[in-house]
């Protein structure tokens, strides 16, 4: 991988603006630092290379009113944001995996347009900001991904481990990069190569057209770096390997004619060793079967018989590591997860924090924050008058006279968001009874959550453990999708489920949201906390977990899904302090009603 890392650094240095950037997924380690140092050495001297902290505010990022200078000068002075300061250079984003969607959108906009449009604090300007990004993504698990919208705008993905041996790859010098930059505008590319890259992207299941555009640009940059004026086969190969392969969402239909099944996912996933080992061979085979298998429009295989297309594809395929597709599936499910910025501490009861929603008149006391700008705004119109009134005491008039009535404080609004956590029993006993009905009920509730702008999360438990199948989201479509694909069967790890939901509810509460836990179960646990089967121990553990839940004071609703109302579930509900609802006699609408009541009570 080290060789590729060096190549990526060099290619990016050749065309930082055109290629958007590099998403570096690596822990903070020497390897990463070395790579950054390498990149820095490859970029021409005096290229701005700025680091952006995670929670940078809009004024620092986009620009805004420079209050100090404004007061000095007596007229509005603009503060240049980091984005426009980095014009022509590179910005390094720290902890991109925790970046909020709205920050990502700001960066995305600048990458798209090369301009920072500023409409803030009475300023109306736009500044050039043609730049490349290096997003440092330290996500340790699949849950933590940088916002997909931003990742899509960066040409490269670079995976690095702390332990990766520094296997020597090709080396480039800043001089080579410089001459490649000069050569780049002259590099020509024939249509066949463009076509090959597009075909490969299609075959690898890459939807976004940006990937293809980037692949073309990378091929050009690779040619320029190699000192060639035309894009050759090897350059398109590099582009496919570095740009297309990491984005693959499926493996291309295997070229072997004996592959009789019309590509079921399990089948294709086992193909890589076969089809990638010998690109030449694969190519030949494809040539031979191109005749007896006319291009099928339903199958999205590249219908081009061109050798180049196959070569490009083979190059991309060879770079797809094992298990990537499995992790991609998870990533896909979670890609729209909204990362939150920082962990909030206690419950946000007072209106001293949250989202600022304008300012109001008032003195900054009891921890309320003064809004300097609004205060100045309020004072501004009166300055002439007030200056006249003030007798110059020591020959010097104050520049600005601010009076008590000018003070403004910032108002904050609590997020006040409710998140409903559905804990769905998908074990064998439940599945037999009413998993389908429970799903239906959850869907009804989802519609209600949509109306109330609530978030939902879905936890499912079966077999040995509970699993968060849908992280908190507002997307109804995704909730539906994740529910539809929910399999049933296996044991009932009830204690685990309660623990997991408690953990999630705790997290949500710390973020300042109000969690509501809706547990759909028949109350008959048979897997204990330690994972061993056994009804008695399981019941004790579940009750213990339920008691803890009550002590933490979450709003809970227990929906008994057993055919007849059972004592087990009732006991559990009592221990949990939960609203108890027996589903057999309650339609889905009654369930809906019940959740509303619980929400209203909290």
């Amino acid at each position, binding site marked *: 991988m080290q060789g590729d890392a060096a190549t990526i650094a060099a290619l990016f240095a050749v065309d930082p603006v055109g290629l958007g950037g590099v998403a570096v997924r690596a822990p903070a380690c020497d390897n990463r630092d070395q790579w950054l140092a390498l990149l820095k050495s490859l970029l021409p001297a005096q290229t701005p290379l700025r680091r952006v902290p995670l929670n940078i505010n809009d004024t620092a990022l986009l620009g805004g009113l420079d209050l100090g200078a404004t007061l000095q000068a007596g007229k509005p002075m603009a503060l240049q944001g980091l984005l426009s300061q980095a014009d022509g250079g590179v910005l390094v984003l720290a902890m991109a995996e925790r970046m909020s969607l709205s920050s990502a959108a700001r960066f995305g906009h600048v990458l798209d347009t090369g301009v920072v449009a500023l409409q803030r604090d009475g300023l109306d300007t736009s500044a050039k900001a043609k730049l490349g990004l290096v997003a440092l993504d330290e996500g340790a698990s699949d849950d933590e991904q940088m916002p997909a919208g931003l990742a899509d705008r960066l040409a490269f993905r670079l995976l690095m481990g702390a332990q990766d041996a520094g296997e020597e790859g090709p080396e480039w010098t800043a001089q080579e990069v410089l001459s490649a930059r000069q050569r780049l505008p002259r590099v020509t590319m024939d249509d066949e190569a463009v076509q090959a890259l597009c075909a490969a992207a299609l075959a690898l299941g890459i*939807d976004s057209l940006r990937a293809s555009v980037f692949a073309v640009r990378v091929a050009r940059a690779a040619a320029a770096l190699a000192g060639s004026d035309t894009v050759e086969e090897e350059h398109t190969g590099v582009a496919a390997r570095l740009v297309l392969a990491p984005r693959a969402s499926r493996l291309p239909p295997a070229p072997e004619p004996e592959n009789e099944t019309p590509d079921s996912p399990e089948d294709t996933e086992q193909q890589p060793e076969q089809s990638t080992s010998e690109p030449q061979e694969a190519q030949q085979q494809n040539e031979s079967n191109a005749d007896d298998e006319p291009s099928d429009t339903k199958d999205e295989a590249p219908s081009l018989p061109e050798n180049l297309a196959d070569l490009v594809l083979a190059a991309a395929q060879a770079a797809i590591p094992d298990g990537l597709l499995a992790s991609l599936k998870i990533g896909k499910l979670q890609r729209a997860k909204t990362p939150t910025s920082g962990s909030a501490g206690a419950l946000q009861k007072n209106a001293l924090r949250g989202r600022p929603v304008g300012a109001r008149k008032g003195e900054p006391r009891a921890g309320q924050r003064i809004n300097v700008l609004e205060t100045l705004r309020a004072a501004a119109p009166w300055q002439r008058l007030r200056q006249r009134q003030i007798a110059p005491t020591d020959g010097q008039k104050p520049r600005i006279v601010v009076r008590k009535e000018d003070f403004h404080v910032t108002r904050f609004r609590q997020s006040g968001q409710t998140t409903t956590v559905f804990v769905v029993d998908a074990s064998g006993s439940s599945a037999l009874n009413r998993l389908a009905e429970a799903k239906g009920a959850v869907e009804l509730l989802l519609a209600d959550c949509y109306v109330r702008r609530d978030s939902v999360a879905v936890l499912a438990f079966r077999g040995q453990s509970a699993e968060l199948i849908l992280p908190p989201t507002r997307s109804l479509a995704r909730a539906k999708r994740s529910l539809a694909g929910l399999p049933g069967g296996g044991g009932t790890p009830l204690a685990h489920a309660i623990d997991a939901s408690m953990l999630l509810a705790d997290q949500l509460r710390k973020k300042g949201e109000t969690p509501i836990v809706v547990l759909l179960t028949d109350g008959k646990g048979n897997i204990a906390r330690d994972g061993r089967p056994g009804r008695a121990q399981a019941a004790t553990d579940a009750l213990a977990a339920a008691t803890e839940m009550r002590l933490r004071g979450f709003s809970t609703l227990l929906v008994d899904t057993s055919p007849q109302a059972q004592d087990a579930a009732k006991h559990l509900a009592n221990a949990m302090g939960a609203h108890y609802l027996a589903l057999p006699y309650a339609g889905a609408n009654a369930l809906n009603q019940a959740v509303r009541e619980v929400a209203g009570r909290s």
Partner: protein
Amino acid sequence: MSLTFPFSAIVGQDDMKMAIMLTAIDPSIGGVLVLGDRGTGKSTAVRALAALLPKMRAVIACPYGCDPDNAKCPNCVAHATAGRKTESSKKTSHWVSVPVVDLPLGATEDRVVGALDLERALSQGIKAFEPGLLARANRGYLYIDEVNLLEDHLVDLLIDVAASGENVVEREGLSVRHPARFVLIGSGNPEEGELRPQLLDRFGLSVEVKTPDLLAQRVEVVKRRDAFEQSPQAFTEHWKKEDDRVRRSIVAAKKRLPDVAIPDEAREFAAQLCMSLGTDGLRGDLTLVRAARAEAALQGARKVERAHLIRVAPSALRHRLRRNPLDDSGSSTRVERALAELTAPKPDAFNS
């Protein structure tokens, strides 16, 4: 300003292009909401729109770009009363391009609605109103990229102004109301967040864009993009003719629009369609008919035909359907299904 990618050079995405052209023909249709996958050229299309629009007449030095025949903003009214006395020169209006105003993310409320002019307040001690983006967008377009990520308090503002066509500013001792009629254009990726139903309703048309999955189309997209980047000048020059043609067709359709008849049958068909889909309110019917009329004008037809209605129905109604979580099919398929049901059983109902 750097060159933008020409509108006519956008490959495919006919629905999106149609919707944008229809609102250019008849702004009263309302805005366009473009939802779709990443990297499908949503914002490219909207940014290309500005180059397509025919110029309009506006009062010189009016911050709201008032129409000289219908100047109602406070500035123009003040001028008109003062102008009578001083017998000002005849040349009061000029040709300007239709504003396409970008509402960038991170914009603050004061810049959107307008606020106290800080510079004049600080330097001269004068209390003056500095118009914001809503003022600039008057008679034109307001474009919000990533509309689903817009801050809630800005959404509230927009909902109000988009409905009333007037911006009322009451802040810092200022009390200003000025016209703010604009076509709202929003784009976004639905995976990143939902849109408030009230805001959805403000959009006349909504289109879903998908990545083309035909190789030839994809190759064409990449090639044109590449050609544009290699030499923007030459590329825009190359497509200028085509863009001019689109502009002429918009101008012609605009002229033709008042003469396009809407037969009662067409209204009935639209109403039937809306009823069978159960859309809330009558805005759906109205938008559907207006969009169909603009489409008819664009096609050079004398009256609205069923084909025009069918063509625009998905865009006009898709976002007005009640969410039904138990129905898995997308909104577009539901509209198409309803269309098929309406057209199939009694084909003579409309023609008779």
